[in-house]
């Protein structure tokens, strides 16, 4: 066990210390896998140790979908709004809650603190790119949080009588790649937003604008078909609906055939664009950071 650990460390330290901070793709897949195994185990342990704090965050993330369920059930009444009946709204927001939990990241709040307090420097000194640290943290939190979110979704679904009748085995299968792509896409996009902390000293206003866009264009406030036509058109050309509304609608059996293919394609294109933007921003951010510290 210890020997294996030492071997991993040696493998990680195989390359010389970086000159301009860590870069992507310096390690073989095997070395990265070794890194992820250890880092994930340690993050998981941290999240389990602070399970009280995790429970409270999970509780707060149930409140917003719950309120939207109440509001839209009231709007739908006995009829249907934008193609959703009251029970279908319930299903929509509960699936949205789970997808949101599995895709969200919090690093846009943390980067400001990391940079102001200098806690970012040790991360930069490691040979492995800091994004891997954040991915691992994020995944472990999601895994622990899922223990609260999933039962909550089931319970609320029973209480509010959610209508999942259009969900089939096929839509569940189609949901898996849509969800995974959404997780990647949202992580990369929001990590780009987080990088803005290198240029702005206070990021709260910018984060609020970003989340406000997400709320409407991503389908968090209401299913996209309920929005005014102009908002739907704008949304389709942004990455937001492809990270949230699309996987939700796939699971609810509302996107099939050609629409499904278009959705996957849009997700892939946006992931490619977002990764390019991330590399561009990262290269400049690190240069700027060292300039501030010097």
């Amino acid at each position: 066990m210890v020997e294996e650990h030492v071997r991993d460390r040696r493998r990680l330290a195989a390359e010389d210390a970086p000159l301009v901070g860590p870069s992507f793709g310096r390690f073989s897949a095997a070395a990265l896998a070794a890194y992820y195994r250890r880092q994930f185990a340690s993050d998981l342990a941290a999240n389990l140790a602070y399970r009280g704090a995790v429970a409270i965050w999970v509780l707060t993330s149930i409140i917003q979908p719950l309120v939207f369920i109440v509001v839209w059930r009231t709007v739908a009444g006995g009829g249907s709004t934008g193609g959703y009946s009251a029970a279908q709204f319930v299903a929509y927001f509960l699936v949205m809650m789970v997808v949101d939990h599995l895709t969200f990241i919090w690093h846009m709040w943390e980067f400001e603190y990391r940079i102001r307090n200098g806690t970012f420097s040790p991360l930069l000194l490691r040979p492995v790119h800091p994004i891997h640290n954040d991915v691992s943290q994020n995944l472990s939190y999601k895994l622990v949080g899922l223990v609260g979110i999933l039962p909550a979704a089931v319970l609320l679904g029973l209480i509010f009588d959610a209508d999942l009748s259009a969900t089939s085995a096929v839509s569940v299968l189609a949901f898996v790649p849509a969800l995974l792509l959404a997780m990647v896409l949202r992580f990369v996009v929001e990590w780009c937003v987080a990088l803005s902390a290198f240029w702005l000293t206070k990021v709260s206003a910018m984060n609020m604008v970003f989340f406000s866009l997400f709320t409407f264009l991503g389908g968090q406030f209401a299913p996209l078909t309920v929005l005014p036509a102009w908002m739907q058109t704008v949304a389709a050309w942004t990455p937001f609906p492809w990270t949230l509304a699309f996987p939700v609608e796939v699971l609810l059996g509302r996107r099939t055939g050609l629409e499904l293919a278009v959705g996957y394609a849009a997700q892939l294109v946006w992931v490619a664009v977002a990764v390019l933007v991330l590399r561009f921003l990262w290269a400049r951010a690190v240069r700027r950071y060292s300039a501030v510290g010097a």
Partner: protein
Amino acid sequence: MHSLRVLRAYLAVGVLNIVQYRSDFIIAVLNALVSLVTQVLGLTVIFTNTTNLRGWTADDLLVLIGIHFFISGLVGLVIRPSMEAMMEGIRLGTFDFVLTKPADSQLLASSQVVAPQAATDVVVGLGVIGFGLVRVGLSLDLVTVVLFLVTLVAGFAIVYGFLLMLSTLAFWFVKLDNILVIFQALFGNAGRWPVTIFPSWMRPVLTFVVPIAFAVTVPAQALTGQLSLPRALLSLGVAALFLTGSRVFWLVALRRYTGASA
């Protein structure tokens, strides 16, 4: 009189802080505006699909959003930052210094930190209430205005008492700052909607456990002419209950407090 002078001194320090951190203030204005635009957009989306939300028109809800801004601004101005500081003080032991000062400890603990940025929410709230009222087109008679002011003050007192009781729990469970996060999430999300649209099993929770109903819904009902006199009186009664209850709880907790060094 002495208490008022203490309060004024703390507020003056807070205002000095505004002058010191001007950019924070600009960012607070930006945040308030983004939040306002988001909520108005939300109302627009809802009311393109319906004409009223269980009896509430778009303009009624605008008034309600204004009151929500106003109350959360007031809470964020002094109460919440002070409560956070108090809980942190209990944890670190610096709460001892509050107790040694020659003024009422509850007053000191509830007003020790002023976050003047929250004043933007108060101003935005007043503006939205005014705008909403013009749109409702209700002629305001004296009774309505008095009812509104009384229920607003009562609502604020209830929220204060509630937050004080929550924070006082820190005397027993030292690490508790997350409990304010839950309140904030409930008040920030559920508080923006009239309690009357919630299912009947949730309404008691939002009325008595987390008193959003009295803080936001009741004043909005008063201003849009949907409030009956008994409910206004109930609001006053609950306020008195919360204030005395939190005071008694505070005194009990203080007797239990042994200081960080003991």
